[in-house]
């Protein structure tokens, strides 16, 4: 068990692939070349789609947007461990995970463009909508998992949240419930070192966030979040554990937000260029690409970049072509049945 081998209380961190893309064979998870290539495609698409979103925002074609840059591996690894019937509960910075789980890119763009249809995923996708109130989705994940367990289904619920979210009461309440009810949950804390301007050290005096699991009575593991193989390996073990009825796991992904908190933010106010450059060296895409090339799984990604550019442009155009909600759209879903006075307001009667 990786959770036995890597003790968060001792600061031990799981890493399969180093910064140059060299892999420790004893830790390498079982993944076919096809899946490895698909993983790289996802990370590249996420990087490029993210960049496009920022550009669209700058042109006034998309609203405030929280970039994923630097967290592609951290997002993707856990999602790769899911089966179709498993649930994905996200916060707002997990584009890569959603794309893997089957959310169309144009739908994700649509949400950030300010259209409620951006919360509508393909039928049966088992993805909850974006959650802006930090940490509030964590208890939902426990409830979803409880419902699966109650019906004797083997589905697992994976929840993402940030380092900042661990300070909210709902993090404590959610993880405590998961421990008590022994629910099939995997919690992934994307520790990107910041909550807006607030550094991880100011968020919690705990040496690691992974170690918080111990207090809730289940395993926690600290993982190099820029190593997609390690993120997958830790999550695969956790998902299997949950599916076997052996309870929840907390995974702390140690990563870095390479870009601004959102397009409204300016990271230069609270961190140095040197610090960011240091993490650019650890770029999750670079190291995975180096590994794939060394293994002859990938030759070069020039063609892929071209292909992804087309996908991104097409998705952006499709999202922009969706009409804004009509007046009746914004009224229609307030209740299952519209109260008479609301019909009056919709009609513009003003009463």
């Amino acid at each position, binding site marked *: 068990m990786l959770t036995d081998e890597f003790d968060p209380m001792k600061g031990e961190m799981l890493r399969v692939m180093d910064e140059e893309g060299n892999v420790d064979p004893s830790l390498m998870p079982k993944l076919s070349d096809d899946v490895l290539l698909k993983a790289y495609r996802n990370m590249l698409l996420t990087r490029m789609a993210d960049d496009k979103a920022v550009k669209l925002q700058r042109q006034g074609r998309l609203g405030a947007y929280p970039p994923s840059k630097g967290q592609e591996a951290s997002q993707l690894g856990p999602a790769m461990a899911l089966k179709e019937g498993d649930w994905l509960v996200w916060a707002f910075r997990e584009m890569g995970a959603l794309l893997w789980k089957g959310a169309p890119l144009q739908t994700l763009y649509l949400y950030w463009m300010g*259209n409620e249809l951006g919360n509508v995923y393909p039928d049966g996708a088992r993805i909850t909508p974006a959650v802006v109130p930090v940490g509030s989705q964590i208890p939902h994940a426990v409830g979803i998992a409880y419902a699966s367990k109650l019906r004797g289904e083997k589905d697992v619920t994976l929840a993402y949240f940030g380092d900042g979210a661990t300070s*909210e009461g709902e993090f404590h309440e959610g993880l405590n419930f998961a421990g008590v009810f022994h629910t099939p949950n995997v919690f992934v804390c994307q520790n990107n070192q910041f909550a807006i301007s607030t550094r991880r050290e100011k968020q919690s005096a705990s040496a690691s966030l992974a170690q918080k699991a111990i207090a809730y009575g289940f395993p926690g593991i600290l993982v190099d979040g820029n190593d997609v193989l390690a993120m997958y390996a830790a999550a695969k073990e956790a998902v299997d554990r949950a599916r076997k009825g052996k309870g929840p796991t907390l995974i702390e992904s140690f990563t870095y937000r390479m870009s601004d908190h959102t397009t409204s933010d300016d990271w230069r106010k609270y961190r140095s260029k040197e610090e960011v450059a240091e993490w650019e060296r650890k770029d999750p895409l670079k190291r995975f690409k180096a590994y794939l090339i060394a293994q002859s799984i990938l030759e070069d990604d020039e063609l892929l970049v071209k292909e992804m550019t087309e996908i991104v442009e097409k998705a952006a155009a499709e999202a922009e072509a969706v009409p804004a*909600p009509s007046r009746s759209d914004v009224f229609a879903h307030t209740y299952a049945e519209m109260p008479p*006075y609301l019909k009056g307001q919709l009609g513009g009667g003003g009463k």
Partner: protein
Amino acid sequence: MMMNMVQAINSALAMEMERDPSVVVLGEDVGVDGGVFRVTEGLVDKYGEARVIDTPLAESGITGMAIGMAFNGLRPVAEIQFMGFSYLTLNQMINHAARMRNRTRGRITVPMVLRMPYGAGVKALEHHSESTEALYAQIPGLKVIVPSTPLEAKGLLTSAIRDPDPVIFLEPTRSYRMLKEEVPDGEYLVPLGKARTVQEGDDVTVVGWGAMIPLIQRAVANLQASVEIIDLRTISPMDSETVVESVKRTGRAVVVHEAPRSFGPGAEIASRIYEGAILKLEAPVERVTAPDITVPLSKGEDHYYVNEQMIRDGIERTLRF
């Protein structure tokens, strides 16, 4: 100095921190970052990390800690990043801050301010456009203030910080950088609980607050009718005298708020007008508000937000009644 509302609030905070060492500022990103709207910009450099406190991300914790600070001689000004996240403070504000004076028969009090940006009209992200002042206004023991201009913001916040009771200070996001006006660099106070007559008139009284005030001013600028505009400033405890006296003269009233209609402050104001001026009324009190729906995301926001035409239509209806 010419200031926008962000600068005016910053100036009030700086003045009060300078004047009174017991004033502290706490919240998410209020230190190095100067707050996500830059309202607390520069304060940490002047007053240090012990008095300008970057907290972990926890609204209930921020509020509960501020309450404890107030128990023990400090005057905390806590920032909640957006009103949509202030619901996590309700347990602390309602069960503790609002009632401590009463529970201890005045022995323990909570002189604190809970500041937050509020309101729609800026096409922001989900949960960043709320206008739920009525939630707080219904709680006895809490004061609820909404400034409408930079000058007002400086004066009202200064009074709020010095007030002996807990104050919810709601800053209209839409007005933060909308307008600059002359604001004194030095001390400037506007009393809490007193409405302001923005413009005198004889035909109809229009009551509003916050971001609605400039909207009302623009809406009535070219009307034939003589319109009296009242900026309520304090939602609770409400200055109904100013409103009722005005309506007694004009005989007609329109209340404008950006919160949804049902159970909104407009209902309370209308009630007080009926209680105080029923025999002088020439028309029912008109309410111009948002509809009773969830604030739409940015693409649908215009279906929600009060506009000038709606205000003119409301005035028209009362005049024609």
